[in-house]
């Protein structure tokens, strides 16, 4: 083997591999072409893996980043998308964003002030900005976006979190004034999300239903090339990008990459294979069972973050025969859930039990929620017995001739199915007959708005309380929004109102705690688990830094070695 290693061709191949310029597959093919046997190649690979480094630190321009993504891409229309995906961070910008420490930092706005009474927020907008089309991006253009979100005709399902806004004004091109009905410190949490990204509304109106499908017009460093649902989304460098003013972004000019290609990989085990095989450069969301293997691979870097997500299930308050309108029954079901066991068995320890509605990573998380919803079968049984439920001959509880049996619908996805099966087994231990029905996406949401007995849902949002308010707000019950339990609980509405009227960060955190305790105790839905977020990159990828406070990495600094 030492003879082979001394050959210039082999040395060149090894150098390229170590620098990250070749994938493992390309390396093996090259080595085979040089006449090396598999044993020799294996030994070379092992030797290379122990010396693989990040390569040089001088950014190189060019190349297309191939990023694997665990979800399908939604249409790229901030106002009416299913979900905002990583491409939003490439083609759009918002008023503000977060730095890796969670501070609000400029993006389209260069600075901002909040009035003493908390009722007026004034943003200074960077001058000279354009959309990809060349149209002017100024305060008037941003006002058009925010007014569009507020207008029910545009179909934004998130209007309720914008309800505290009284008006948006643009007195001059570089000044945007948001007037509030009451103090609303959470405003910054809202406008930083992809749903409030700045879009050219004139172009959006021109394309109508095809906006976000056939074209987009944002101001981010990349322009959309194509979006093929179920397959990929591609962007290319925007030649006229004026550069970023965000302090945490190092590259103040045009992006280094020629383009980015996000590849939808819905088959969980395939994600790890593709990044190990060098078919993709970066990856979001490997299967949990593959994480150990990826961490052991020295050609890869695995980043683990807390994720702003949660799995929960609803209980239709209209099923009064089952007592779902009674808090004791909901608490009984919750006590039957072995959250820690689920995290260990299904997430391989890469997650946490959810005792309240949000993850421990959130600034306002309170450990007080952990006094509720602990796994306690005896307590579950006694709560149900106190409500008059008794075990029938088949072990299933009955009351007034009604069996305690209900259906939970889930979206057909492998982890959902595993979780559904776990819940089914755990409900059985307290004499509850749970039937889990797996449905495709269209059917699932169709039935969700018809309020099924129960449904399991997964949310992901950078400030989770904001999205959770949608699920518990009585204004969203009865098909008007995603309150799929039809839960009308005055205590919850008060908690939502307190959250939405916080005037400063301290008040926001206090209101957040109140909100969490209300959910944990009243259970408008039953929280289950939160999973960790995993990102993986090959060594040839530089400047790619997923962080805790942004759902996706920014791509301005990314370059390929």
């Amino acid at each position, binding site marked *: 083997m030492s003879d082979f290693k001394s050959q210039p061709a082999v040395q060149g191949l090894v150098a390229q591999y170590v620098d990250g310029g070749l994938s493992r597959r390309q390396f093996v093919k090259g080595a085979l072409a040089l006449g090396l046997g598999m044993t020799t190649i294996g030994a070379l690979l092992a030797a290379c893996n122990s010396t693989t480094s990040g390569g040089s630190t001088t950014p190189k321009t060019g190349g297309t980043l191939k990023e694997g993504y665990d979800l399908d891409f939604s249409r790229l229309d901030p106002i009416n998308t299913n979900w905002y995906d990583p491409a939003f961070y490439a083609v759009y910008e918002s008023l503000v964003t977060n730095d890796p420490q969670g501070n609000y930092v400029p993006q389209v706005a260069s600075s901002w002030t909040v009035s003493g009474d908390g009722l007026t927020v004034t943003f200074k907008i960077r001058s000279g900005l354009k959309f990809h089309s060349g149209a002017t991006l100024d305060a008037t253009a941003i006002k058009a976006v925010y007014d569009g979100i507020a207008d029910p005709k545009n179909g934004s399902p998130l209007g309720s979190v914008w309800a505290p806004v009284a008006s948006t004004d643009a007195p001059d091109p570089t000044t945007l004034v948001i007037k509030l009905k009451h103090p609303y410190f959470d405003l910054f949490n809202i406008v930083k999300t992809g749903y409030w990204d700045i879009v050219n509304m004139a172009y959006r109106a021109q394309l109508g239903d095809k906006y976000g499908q056939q074209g987009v017009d944002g101001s981010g460093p990349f322009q959309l090339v194509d979006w093929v649902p179920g397959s990929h989304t591609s962007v290319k460098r925007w030649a006229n990008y004026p550069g970023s003013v965000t302090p945490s972004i190092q590259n103040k000019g045009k992006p280094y990459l020629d383009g980015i290609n996000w590849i939808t990989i819905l088959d969980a085990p395939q994600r790890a*294979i593709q990044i190990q095989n060098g078919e993709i450069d970066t990856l979001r969301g490997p299967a949990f069972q593959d994480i150990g293997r990826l961490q052991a691979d020295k050609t890869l870097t695995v980043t683990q973050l807390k994720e702003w997500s949660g799995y929960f299930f609803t209980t239709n308050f209209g099923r009064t025969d089952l007592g779902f309108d009674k808090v004791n029954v909901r608490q009984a079901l919750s006590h039957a859930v072995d959250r820690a066991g689920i995290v260990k068995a299904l997430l391989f320890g890469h997650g946490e039990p959810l005792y309240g509605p949000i993850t421990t990573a959130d600034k306002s998380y309170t450990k007080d929620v952990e006094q509720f919803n602990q796994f306690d079968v005896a307590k579950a049984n006694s709560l149900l017995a106190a409500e008059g439920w008794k075990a029938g001959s088949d072990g299933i509880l009955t009351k007034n001739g009604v069996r305690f049996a209900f259906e939970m619908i889930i979206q057909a996805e492998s982890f959902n199915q595993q979780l559904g099966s776990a819940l089914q087994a755990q409900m059985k231990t307290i004499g509850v007959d749970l039937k889990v029905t797996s449905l495709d996406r269209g059917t699932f949401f169709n039935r969700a708005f018809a309020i099924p007995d129960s449904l399991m849902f997964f949310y992901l949002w950078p400030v989770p309380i904001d999205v959770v308010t949608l699920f518990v707000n009585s204004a969203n019950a009865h098909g008007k929004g995603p309150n799929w339990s039809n839960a009308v609980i005055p205590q919850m509405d008060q908690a939502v109102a307190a959250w939405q009227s916080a005037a400063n960060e301290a008040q926001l955190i206090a209101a957040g705690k109140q909100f969490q305790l209300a959910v944990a105790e009243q259970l408008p839905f039953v929280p289950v688990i939160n999973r960790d977020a995993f990102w993986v990159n090959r060594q040839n990828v530089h400047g790619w830094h997923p962080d805790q406070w942004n759902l996706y990495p920014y791509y301005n600094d990314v370059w390929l070695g």
Partner: protein
Amino acid sequence: MLLILTISSVVIFYAMRSAPGGPSGGGVLNPLSSQEIRQAYDHRMGLDQPVYTQYFIYLKHLATGDLGTSLVNGTPITELLATHARNSLVLGLTALVISYLIAIPLGVLAAVKRNTWVDQLAMGGAILGMGIPNFWLALILVYFFSLRLGLLPSAGCCDPPQLILPALVLAAEGTAVTMRMTRSSMLEHLHDDFVRALRAKGLPEWQVVIRHVLRNALIPVISLSGLRLGWLVGYALIVETIFRWPGVGYLLVDSVLRRDYPVAQFFSLLLIFFVLLANWLADIGYGLANPRIRVA
């Protein structure tokens, strides 16, 4: 053929709309959208009209050559057809070529070397090929060639290396069936009177086998080809989905799940048309290969 296509179009049209959750129910719009927004979308798209009205509008558009556009991403179906049909054609043809290149020589060899280790090995392979489900074979191949050896990509399109694994998987069962069919058909003819006569005339054995026996033995194989094209279409739905090969099968599965009515309708009909066409071509090929049938 036209009658079958018409009946199929009605069945597909009604089946798609009978499935719960239309395009506005999570397929196209935000799933959190209110009922009002979804109703407004249905109205804009004409999805709130009676199904028979929608069907006649659809036929009217088809008659004028308007195949429609995808509800999900707004791409004209003609564009989808150009890219996805090409991809499917490349995959299907590659699988067919692989299949015949392996199956016919091995089938002939197995027949000529009957009851030897060559025969047993070939037939053992054929039994495996028929018995292994293609989704499982796909996983095994991905495990060895992508994960363990790092030689081939595990999925994607459309570089030549990305074609190898899906084509092999798609070819597997057909290869096995064709190999067995070739062998048994060869065995039927190897001891025919005309073969004995040819040998008696002193013709070299390879000429007897290849030029005379194989030609006759191929008749049932050609007949089987028509059926095989039909199977290929069915298997392509699975193989293209596993390997994320963006062909017609992949698009069809995706569009059904998203309730992208125009796309699902058109490509379902296209596949039906293709199967009918394949059977028709097989009949013609059978006639060409066997003049007795053509004359009759």
